[in-house]
Every structure is written in structure tokens, then in C-alpha cells.
């Protein structure tokens, strides 16, 4: 069945993947499984004359129950509607609504039921008086039930899309023609979560704590639900696991910085207290471990249902791995800890380049995720790379199912990658990972220089260095301020 899906007009690249992941979670692809052909994508359609970045999309879902489940768990779905009619003018809308014969129609018209009609607009403001007139205009629908403004049985919504007025177009290219939708609401997102979990009220914060909205989107991509075990190898203050725990998953986290995982800022301001603050179950485990040399016992595999993380890319926070600064720099012979100083020795750590970090992450995920388990992580991309195709990390055990970009500055953006484990972790794959691990270790310095994202993001741009900067500025297309993908 086709539903009208109205999104909040933000994080455009994240909207469809969220709905598709939740569709997976609520069993929308169940039939496809039986045919042996796993599907991760839904059918989408755009309303007439709408831009792909428009907040309005039509989506095909197997049942109203699934549509409702998706909408109420989502973060970015403003409303999911059974469409009763649409048109370019109120006359067209009227004809369309009157000829609508969906199965959901008759029960809503019965006496004894309660209903409400609201007006929503995109691209223009409609005064309350006008709204009243518009609502009364629907008197042609033979409602026999009572109007009830608070908690009615059926919510109806008139959506007016008209962003063709002078300049005020919400950053979208103007819709060629005004469009009207009328539909019955099937479900909507619970955005009250966001003020509850917003970072400014979080007790323990780090410099790279994940924004609550994004953390919930990540947890949705990872299909976090009760009974699942979710792991974050770069847990920090736990901001991603908090979202997964909210959806009922059991959580486990590791970090190389012991001050963050063990101490925090005191007994009531640490990773544990961040869970306690929201009444969430505590993580099953927090430990200090190095993602480069994870301490999992040999033979342990397929224990996590999902791995969610924001690896250190070396822009705001750099990764560290064990082995010692000096050894890694190659300037000093291997450091041996004297026997009398072994207890209480604080090992130094060396820089951990992104390429190696991502390699280790994929290897760990390939081994430790169950089949069908999800790896969800951010990967940074330089925006100046003119190559039209992005090169995301790949692994023989994983299938990339979606990538969502979030632009961070004119220089770089981060992309949320969602991968599904589709192949077993074989001995050959493990061996190849060991070889690669040694290669990283031997050529540590070379890798550090090659993968230095920090300098690419912060070095002065060439345009400012050259004398003819003025001319070249005119030649270069100004980068669109609008953050959508297609503009």
C-alpha cells in the first residue's frame, strides 16, 4: 500500500535510510526473505513536480501497522498518511477526495467515531483564520462522527505545499506548481525524545559526544531492540550507546582512554551516570581496550548484533593505539619496561591513522557480528575531491546498504555508512587481516602521512595563496549553501 510520508526538512540524506531500516526491523521485507533474495530498499515515488529533496514522498509499505510502527519509532518522519486525495487546486483536491475508495475510509466516517482536521503547510504560513476556513471547506466529506480536538480516533491533515513565493523557498528549488494533500495520519515521530536527551542536559560530555538526534538515527540504522547486544569500540562518554539503550538494546563499550571510561568527572558524572540520568539499564560492560589489538579471546565470534561507532578521524580528536610513541616514530629502539616498574606502569600510545582504524573496525565487525548484524559508523570525506564516486571502505563479509552524508564544513563532511554482514568470517579473511595488520605496523609513519585528514581540512586553501585569487574565485562555482544532496 502507498502512503504519503512527510519528513522533517532536515538531514535529508538520512530520511529514506531510516525508514528503510525501520521497515526491515518491523518485518516489511519478510516476504522477500522467503524468496531467498534479501531486500533492504522500499519503493519510493515523488509527488508531481516535486524535487527529490522535497519533504514529501510516497512510500510503498505492506501494511498500516508497519507504517505506524515505522513512523512512531522514527526521528525524521513528521507524519505517515493514508492519502485521501491530492491536487494542484482545492477543486482538484475535492474531486480526488470524493473519488477516494481506500479501505480505511468507511470506518472513519461512521457515527460514534471522533476525528480532527489540522492544517500543515510547507513554504508558506497560513493564518489561523485561513486555516479555519480551509478546514470548514471539507464539509463535502460525509463525516458522521464527532469532532474531538484532543486525542481523537482519526487525525486528518491538509498539507499545503507552496514554496513558490518570492525567494522564501526553504532552500529548495521552487515547486513548479502548488500541491495540496489530504490524508489520514497513520503515525508520527516522537520528537519529544530529543529535548529529553539533548546534549546540553547530559551530565557527562566529551568534546566529540554524539548529538542526540544523530545518535538515535544511528541506533535506528543498527536496528537496536530489546534482546540485542550493541557494541561501541570508541565509546567515549557513551553518547551513542545511550540511544541504543533507549530502544532497549544491551550495550557494551570500550575505549583506549581509561580516564573517560573509568573515572569521568567523579562519581556522579561518568559514563554510568549518563545511563542512570535517563533511567536506562547500565551497559553490560565497559572496558579499556585498544581497537588495534582487541582483547577478545580466540574463538570468540558472532556475539554482537550491531556495532555502532564514530571512529576518531583525526580532525577533532585523533585516534591512539598501543605500542608507544617513540617506538612507533622509529627514532628509538623498542622500549622495554623495567621489571620493577611493571606494576602501575602507564603505557604510552601512538597515533592511529584512520585507514588502519577503519581496517581494524571492519575486521573486528566481520568477526564479532552475527550474520545479518549491522555495522554503522561515520566515515569522513573530503568535499574537494572532485571524483563523483565516493570510495567507501569495503570488506568481503559486508554489503553497504546505505550512506548518508552530513556536511560539516566547506572542506569535509562525514558519511554515515550502514553495512550488513552477509558473509562468514573465514580463515582466509582472518589471515589477510593479519598480514595487513603487520603492514600497517611496519609502515606506520607512511600511513600516518598518507591518511592525514587534519591537514587536508585545516590547511589554507590554494585560492587564498595564489595572487590571482580574485580571478579564480569567479571561475570557481560557489559551493551551494544548501545542504541537500542533489542541489
Amino acid at each position, binding site marked *: 500500500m502507498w502512503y504519503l510520508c512527510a519528513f522533517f526538512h532536515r538531514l535529508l540524506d538520512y530520511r529514506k535510510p531510516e525508514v528503510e531500516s525501520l521497515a526491515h526491523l518491523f518485518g516489511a521485507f519478510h516476504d522477500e526473505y522467503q524468496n531467498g533474495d534479501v531486500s533492504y530498499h522500499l519503493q519510493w515515488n515523488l509527488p508531481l513536480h516535486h524535487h527529490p529533496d522535497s519533504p514529501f514522498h510516497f512510500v510503498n509499505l505492506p501494511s498500516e501497522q508497519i507504517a505506524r510502527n515505522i513512523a512512531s519509532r522514527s526521528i525524521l518522519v513528521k507524519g505517515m498518511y493514508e492519502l485521501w486525495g491530492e491536487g494542484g487546486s482545492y477543486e482538484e483536491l475535492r474531486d480526488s477526495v470524493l473519488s477516494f475508495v481506500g479501505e480505511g475510509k468507511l470506518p472513519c466516517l461512521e457515527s460514534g467515531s471522533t476525528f480532527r482536521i489540522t492544517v500543515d503547510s510547507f513554504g508558506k504560513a497560513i493564518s489561523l483564520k485561513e486555516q479555519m476556513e480551509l478546514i470548514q471547506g471539507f464539509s463535502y466529506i460525509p463525516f458522521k462522527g464527532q469532532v474531538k480536538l484532543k486525542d481523537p480516533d482519526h487525525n486528518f491533515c491538509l498539507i499545503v505545499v507552496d514554496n513558490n513565493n518570492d525567494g522564501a523557498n526553504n532552500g529548495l528549488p521552487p515547486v513548479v506548481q502548488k500541491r495540496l494533500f489530504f490524508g489520514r495520519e497513520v503515525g508520527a515521530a516522537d520528537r519529544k525524545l530529543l529535548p529529553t536527551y539533548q546534549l546540553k542536559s547530559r551530565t557527562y560530555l566529551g568534546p566529540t559526544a554524539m548529538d542526540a538526534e544523530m545518535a538515535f538515527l544511528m541506533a535506528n540504522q543498527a536496528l537496536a531492540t530489546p534482546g540485542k547486544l550493541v557494541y561501541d569500540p570508541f565509546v567515549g562518554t557513551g553518547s551513542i550507546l545511550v540511544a541504543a539503550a533507549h530502544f532497549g538494546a544491551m550495550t557494551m563499550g570500550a575505549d583506549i582512554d581509561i580516564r573517560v571510561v573509568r573515572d569521568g568527572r567523579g562519581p556522579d558524572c561518568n559514563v554510568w551516570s549518563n545511563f542512570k540520568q535517563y533511567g536506562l539499564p547500565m551497559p553490560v560492560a565497559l572496558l579499556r581496550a585498544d581497537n588495534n589489538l582487541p582483547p577478545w579471546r*580466540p574463538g570468540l565470534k558472532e556475539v554482537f548484533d550491531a556495532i555502532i561507532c564514530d571512529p576518531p578521524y583525526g580532525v577533532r580528536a585523533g585516534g591512539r593505539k598501543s605500542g608507544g610513541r617513540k617506538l612507533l616514530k622509529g627514532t628509538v629502539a623498542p622500549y622495554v619496561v623495567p621489571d620493577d616498574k611493571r606494576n602501575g606502569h602507564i603505557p604510552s600510545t601512538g597515533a592511529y591513522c584512520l585507514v588502519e582504524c577503519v581496517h581494524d573496525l571492519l575486521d573486528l565487525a566481520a568477526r564479532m557480528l552475527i550474520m545479518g548484524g549491522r555495522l554503522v559508523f561515520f566515515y569522513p570525506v573530503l568535499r574537494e575531491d572532485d571524483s563523483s564516486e565516493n570510495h567507501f571502505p569495503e570488506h568481503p563479509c559486508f554489503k553497504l546498504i546505505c550512506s548518508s552524508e552530513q556536511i560539516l564544513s566547506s572542506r569535509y563532511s562525514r558519511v554515515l555508512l550502514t553495512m550488513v554482514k552477509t558473509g562468514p568470517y573465514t580463515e582466509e579473511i582472518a589471515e589477510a587481516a593479519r598480514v595487513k595488520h603487520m603492514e600497517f605496523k611496519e609502515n606506520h609513519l607512511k600511513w600516518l602521512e598518507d591518511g592525514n585528514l587534519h591537514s587536508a581540512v585545516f590547511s589554507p586553501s590554494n585560492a587564498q595563496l595564489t595572487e590571482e585569487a580574485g580571478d579564480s574565485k569567479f571561475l570557481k562555482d560557489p559551493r551551494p549553501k544548501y545542504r541537500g544532496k542533489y542541489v
Partner: protein
Amino acid sequence: MRLLTHNMLSSNIKGVINGFPLRIEAVKVEEKTVEMNADLLKNMFQKIEWKALIEASRAMGYTGLPEESDFSLLESDEFLSRFHHALLELHLEEGALVCPESGRRFPVSKGIPNMLLHEDEV
């Protein structure tokens, strides 16, 4: 640190072949009640090294687990609640995990095992 975590960890020092199971030196053990999830336990049961769990629970002062285990035991509520208690409710707050081969101590403080290796162990 719960015994579930203990059951997953090993000493990964360079050259150490049998780094599992880590011997527990318990200084402070706490018990925290958590809600039982039978499905999760049954799922975890397949992945647990039973002998290591028994030894660890004894080191923590709990002797309620049977010596041998097999899938038929999962039908028993009594067994499930004992398994649940050992796996998820016993916490090692202070102490150490000791590598069975090299004797290296990995300290556990405030419930957090510190598994980071020294420079010459990598």
C-alpha cells in the same frame, strides 16, 4: 566487570598462546540485581566457555553452577536463574585479571578492566 565480559576476554600479549581464561584476583565483589531475559541467556549460552565461567564464579565466591552443562539444562528455570546470576549479576569491582601463561596482571578498578598492553608487549 561481569563474568560475561570475563568470558570474552583474553590476554593478547605478543607471544602468549593460551591467554584464556584469565584468572580472577577478587578484592571487591558486588552483586547487582538485573532483570532476567531468558532468550538472551539461551542465546549467550552457546557462546560461553563453561569451564571458564565456573572457575570465574568460584573466584568470585559463587558455587551455584553445575560442573557440566548442556542445552537440556536451559529448560530448567532454576538453572537459568543461577546462570543469569553468575553471568550478569556478579561484578568484580576491584581486583585483577591474571594472564594464565605469563602471569601479567590486568588491573580492574571501579569495575573497568584495563586491557591495554605495555609498549614491549605489543
